[in-house]
């Protein structure tokens, strides 16, 4: 078994127009910038993207949005230091937004990966974000029913990967990446280094290879924050 793919272009080649794509990362940390740029190059459009944010500056997710490839964004916080691209398109009615509380977003993705179609959470009860959702009481407290979230593809970033797709992460760049790996039909991981089988201690494997379909090596991956400080623009 060898899940390695030689190039970024090859890794994303199968993502069709209209696909639902989960993109890992929280802000720039853990964001698979090179895979996102390859997705831009692939020309795929009308995508529904799941990410915590809406990108920053003119690289990565912000560039994907700027190139008008995203029809709908499912996220918790589409506002930050420089999210002008999303803000302008949203206010012009050019992109759809499904706003989800951050913990609910994480749990919906976990549920999607775990085969749990719905669950109850106290989060958002009694707020505008619970409107239209079923509620129920458990042990005298009210909860909102939320549904699983799945995707056709997940593009994620990890630190180490092997040919079987086992992954480990670096610091807070872990965030949504391991969850998204479980919730997509096809998960593509960019890793900073491909190691031989056994190169990741089984005790240290965070995402077991069963959740991963493709691994592509990107040595010294770009950091969104560094690109933005250099005022980079993609493409």
């Amino acid at each position, binding site marked *: 078994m060898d899940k390695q793919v030689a190039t970024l272009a090859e890794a994303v080649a199968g993502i069709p127009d209209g696909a639902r794509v989960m993109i890992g990362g*929280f*802000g*720039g*940390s*853990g964001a698979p910038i090179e895979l996102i740029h390859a997705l831009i190059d692939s020309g795929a459009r009308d995508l529904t993207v799941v990410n*915590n944010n809406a990108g920053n500056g003119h690289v990565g997710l912000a560039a994907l949005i700027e190139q008008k490839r995203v029809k709908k964004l499912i996220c*918790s*916080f*589409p*506002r*930050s*230091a420089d*999210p002008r691209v*999303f*803000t302008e398109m*949203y*206010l012009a009615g050019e992109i759809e*937004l499904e*706003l*989800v*509380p*951050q*913990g*609910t*977003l*994480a*749990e919906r*993705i*976990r549920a999607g990966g775990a085969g749990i179609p719905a669950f109850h*959470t*106290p*989060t*958002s*009860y*009694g*707020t*505008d*974000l619970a409107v239209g959702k079923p509620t129920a009481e458990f042990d005298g407290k*009210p909860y909102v029913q939320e549904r699983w979230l799945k995707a056709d593809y997940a593009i994620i970033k990890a630190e180490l990967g092997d040919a079987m797709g086992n992954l480990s*992460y*670096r*610091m*807070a*760049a*872990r*965030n*949504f*990446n*391991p*969850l998204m790996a479980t919730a997509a039909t096809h998960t593509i991981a960019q890793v900073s280094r491909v190691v031989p089988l056994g190169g990741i201690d089984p005790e240290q494997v*965070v995402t077991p290879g069963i959740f991963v379909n493709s691994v592509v090596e990107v040595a010294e991956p770009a*950091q*969104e*924050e*560094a690109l933005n400080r250099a005022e980079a623009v993609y493409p």
Partner: protein
Amino acid sequence: MSKMTMEQLAEIKLSNAQIAWRAAQDIEDGAYVNLGIGFPEMVAKFQPEGREAIFHTENGVLGFGEAPAAGEEDWDLINAGKKAITLKPGSAFFHHADSFAMVRGGHLDVAILGAYQVAENGDLANWSTGRGGVPAVGGAMDLVHGAKRVAVLTDHVTKKGDPKLVAACTMPLTGVGCVTRIYTSLAVVDVEAGRFVLREKLPAISMEDLQALMGAELTTNGPVGDLIAPEL
């Protein structure tokens, strides 16, 4: 009922740093704490001598420390505000679902947030002014559920002088009946059984003047202490 002018209030009220200092005095040694982005983050600077809280950030770090020096940032190591942080001995990384299990699962001792409005039944409005623009909620709606104490730091009134402690929130809610204590620029107020209960107030303001700056009844239940913060 006399009413203090905004100028008079500005002279006596606590600064944000002093409000954060007061909130920090209530955090026990070893407490697991989440500080909201912005103003609440200042609480970390004022931990009393001999006490050490363990700070949680939504994006998957427990036990982080101060910001690194400029040029020393590692952009894989940030907090929920996307700011670079450092690690302390004993820190841990985890994914987002585990992070929010810590929040909703009742494992945090204290969550400290900002507020637009707090109602006497503990309802909190802090995520949206309801006036359009791009809506963004982040982890606020999760953080108000599960922590043993949900505390709010806020100016006692808005910039225009309108009450922020009100009978019912008029802005979109973050959570229902979730706030347990409010640290304001003038007072420390608990939410108990659907009422605001005064615990401490600045010596320079009378009960009547404080009540006049509230949108709901301010009750007492036991002694009211003096709210005194050091110059910071």
